[in-house]
């Protein structure tokens, strides 16, 4: 009974990318409005931990002496002792065996301090997941519990001085010794988080110079040294150094996964990390906005509180809107993955494959989350700094640190360019594989355009305007995907400028669709949701404005003369202007945040 009910749920999880084809609200998804009591309890304890152990010594953790004293490692170990690093570890390995949503919630709570967040993420995210997912029984028994309990600090070493985005071009090599007992590693890994205090690391190297393979490397390996600490713009409380291998022997039993299949480990691990990075960004944004409101409510100029100036409230409203969407779109991914994993049997020999498939299913959404949230964060922090005036530019206020720490989010876990390019690439691949019926959707769209795009209800209520504008954004995105693939065919992957524009549209659709879907679920509980409706209306209407302009520019770059006209005509028919009083909408959103002293559309 229970089993079949679970299977039904599994099949209910929508295909990755389907947000583009289906109207908003077609598939209910997990939102932060639905945490259970356990999750809320864990969140509260994580919050307490952050305030007392991290925020209280935030600047101290950044100092060079702090690093020498390894204060950060002490904090990490304390977190491990409380079980924060065992969230995703299965029960049979001594963990909590909790779902992706719960794990994401912890990442969220720890995201409010960049230094701790990246240390935690490198240790028990990318530093542990490869062993959890790809390790054999002996490796799991030897490493999982000690890492989860904080007895061993872990790291993940993929990047090299000469290969970052192009990770598979790595030059670190491994060669089996004559006795056949050890692989001898030579090469350098660059930018490795947790390097200074690592006890163990996941290191990628090419066996015989061509078989890309993952290894588990212990700190005390001979011939293995750690480079000096980098002097960074931000995340100064974290450790980033090179790992240097000079004829370093690694026992053959420390080969992780299959020889020559290291890329699967590398990319799946990053896939997992991407939407988590989105949530980390969201968390810092929430904290920054709360602190910035407090500042601006206290300071007066022209006998007016800074927070009461329209120019400032406008910035605040945009920030609140972005946080709401970020919250909606990130947890949606974790919830969908959980839904797919729910019916799976852990003892099934293909369990790992199935788990990877469930995560890969949402690769488009995960890349979108990484890019969209990290860029929203930088815009939000820039506004927060701005309304601090000169005080935002000095170390006395936290926003200065937030800005420095946030910047790297657009660089690591796959740069935003790489992730942007992955989005339309993956979408097109899925259409070819017939996993997503893009062709059917475009055919239907052409019919709609021929008979006339429906018009907005005369007296739109609630989410009507937002849903209408979002549907037009989706139509434009489909049209554009069709326009550019018709023009470039298989050569599309060389047209990065075009792909970036298309990617931006897809991400915007995903964000607004997530916000509207969540708001529909909230309204179904009977509450009017004035602020959430304002956010959806604002972001959908302005999103449509941008989408229309961008679509025109893209087709103008693809086509000329008689070939161009029909595309422009279709864009004009779809990209109708949707009227909205954006000043009033922003005022509603901002007033609520000022009144409550921060972003309070969620409550965990």
């Amino acid at each position, binding site marked *: 009974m229970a089993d079949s009910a679970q299977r039904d749920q599994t099949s209910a999880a929508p295909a990755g990318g389907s947000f583009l084809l289906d109207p908003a609200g077609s598939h209910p998804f997990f939102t932060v409005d639905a945490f259970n*009591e*356990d999750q809320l*309890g864990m969140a509260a*304890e994580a919050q*307490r*931990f952050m305030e007392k152990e991290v925020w209280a010594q935030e600047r101290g953790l950044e100092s060079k002496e702090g690093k020498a004293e390894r204060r950060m490692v002490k904090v990490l170990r304390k977190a491990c002792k*409380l*079980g*924060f690093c065992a969230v995703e570890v299965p029960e049979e390995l001594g963990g*909590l065996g909790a779902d992706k949503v719960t794990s994401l919630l912890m990442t969220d709570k720890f995201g409010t301090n960049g230094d701790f967040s990246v240390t935690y993420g490198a240790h028990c995210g990318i530093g542990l997941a490869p062993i959890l997912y790809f390790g054999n029984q002996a490796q799991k028994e030897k490493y999982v519990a000690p890492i989860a309990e904080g007895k061993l600090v872990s790291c993940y070493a993929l990047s090299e001085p000469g290969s970052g985005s192009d990770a598979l071009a790595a030059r670190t090599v491994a060669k089996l010794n004559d006795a056949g007992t050890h692989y001898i590693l030579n090469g350098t890994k660059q930018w490795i988080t947790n390097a200074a205090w690592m006890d163990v690391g996941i290191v990628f190297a090419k066996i015989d110079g061509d078989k890309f393979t993952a290894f588990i490397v212990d700190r005390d390996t001979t011939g293995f040294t750690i480079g000096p600490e980098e002097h960074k713009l931000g995340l100064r409380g974290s450790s980033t150094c090179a790992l240097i291998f000079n004829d370093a022997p690694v026992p053959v039993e420390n080969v992780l996964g299959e020889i020559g299949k290291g890329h699967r480990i590398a990319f799946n691990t990053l896939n997992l990390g991407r939407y988590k990075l989105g949530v980390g960004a969201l968390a810092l944004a929430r904290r920054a906005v709360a602190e910035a409101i407090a500042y601006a409510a206290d300071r007066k100029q022209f006998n007016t509180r800074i927070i009461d100036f329209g120019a400032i409230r406008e910035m605040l409203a945009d920030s609140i809107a972005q946080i709401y969407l970020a919250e909606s779109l990130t947890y949606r991914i974790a919830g969908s993955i959980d839904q797919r994993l729910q019916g799976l049997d852990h003892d099934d020999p293909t369990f790992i494959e199935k788990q990877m498939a469930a995560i890969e299913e949402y690769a488009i959404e995960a890349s979108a989350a990484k890019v969209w949230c990290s860029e929203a964060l930088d815009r939000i922090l820039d506004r927060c700094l701005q309304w601090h005036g000169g005080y935002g530019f000095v170390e006395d206020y936290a926003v200065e640190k937030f800005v420095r720490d946030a910047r790297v989010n657009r660089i690591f876990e796959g740069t935003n360019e790489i992730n942007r390019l992955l989005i339309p690439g993956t979408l097109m691949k899925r259409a070819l594989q017939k996993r997503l019926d893009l062709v059917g959707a475009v055919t239907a769209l052409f019919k709609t355009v021929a008979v006339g795009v429906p018009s907005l209800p005369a007296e739109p209520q609630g989410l009507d305007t937002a849903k209408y504008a979002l549907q037009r954004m989706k139509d434009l995105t489909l049209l554009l995907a069709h326009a550019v693939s018709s023009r470039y065919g298989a050569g599309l992957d060389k047209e990065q400028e075009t792909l970036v524009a298309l990617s931006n549209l897809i991400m915007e659709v995903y964000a607004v669709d997530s916000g509207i879907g969540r708001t529909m679920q909230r309204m179904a509980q009977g509450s009017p949701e004035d602020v959430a409706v304002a956010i959806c209306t604002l972001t959908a209407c302005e999103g449509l404005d941008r989408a229309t302009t961008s679509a025109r520019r893209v087709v103008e770059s693809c086509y000329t003369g008689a070939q161009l006209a029909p595309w422009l005509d279709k864009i004009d028919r779809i990209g109708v202007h949707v009227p909205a009083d954006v000043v009033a909408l922003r005022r509603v959103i901002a007033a609520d945040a000022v009144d409550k002293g921060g972003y309070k559309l969620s409550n965990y």
Partner: protein
Amino acid sequence: MKILVSAKRVSDPNARLNISRDGKWIEGDVEYILNPFCENAIECALQLAEAHDGTETVAVGIGDDETARFIRQGALARGVDRGILVEADEAVIDSDVIARIYQGLCERERPDILLLGKQAIDGDSNQVGQLVAEYLGWPQATFASKVEIQGDEVIVQREVDGGLETIALTMPCVITADLRLNEPRYASLAGIMKAKKKPLDELEMDDLDLDSTDPKVRVVAMSTPAGRKAGVMVKTVDELVHKLKTEARVV
């Protein structure tokens, strides 16, 4: 041994509170936390239980359904064995009724030690421990900063004006915890997940055979603190000293 310990929720001191329309209570989306002194009491109970095998710890909350969450998260998740929720309307009951409830609970549970926070940081009454000791006829040690069991006695160091006092009590007894008693632990995630499987009894005041449930104190009015007055800028140190002497009268 058995220890009964309080787990009272209080409105978050950092949250902005709105006074209800009748001016007698707070209203709206109030955020709550566990009373910090109860956290000290809970930590003390857990440490005593760890030091003395076979000790049972029981956490008590008084209030509405929401209070159960604080018993589970604040006490059971940290390691307290079980909980009791006594349903009552916090807007109506006073310290005396609460003391009577604890009296009823002690008669029912027969603990060796009743451990309470020295006061709740919302009402700041600082009365319950003293009252319940009187009603039960048990010895009491308020403002405890150190608690140890030696043989049949509990040795308590108390924070008193200008110093410390160490007293020995026979059991059963009432102890109220001060801030310096200990550093409350975090709940582990495993503890949080286990908490909901621990027993949590729900009682009504009627279940306790109380002598009296009529409050003796009634809230007449509540008001928010007056806004801070604007500061003044002084031009010279002399002026500052002068103002501190004549206006602020602090030097």
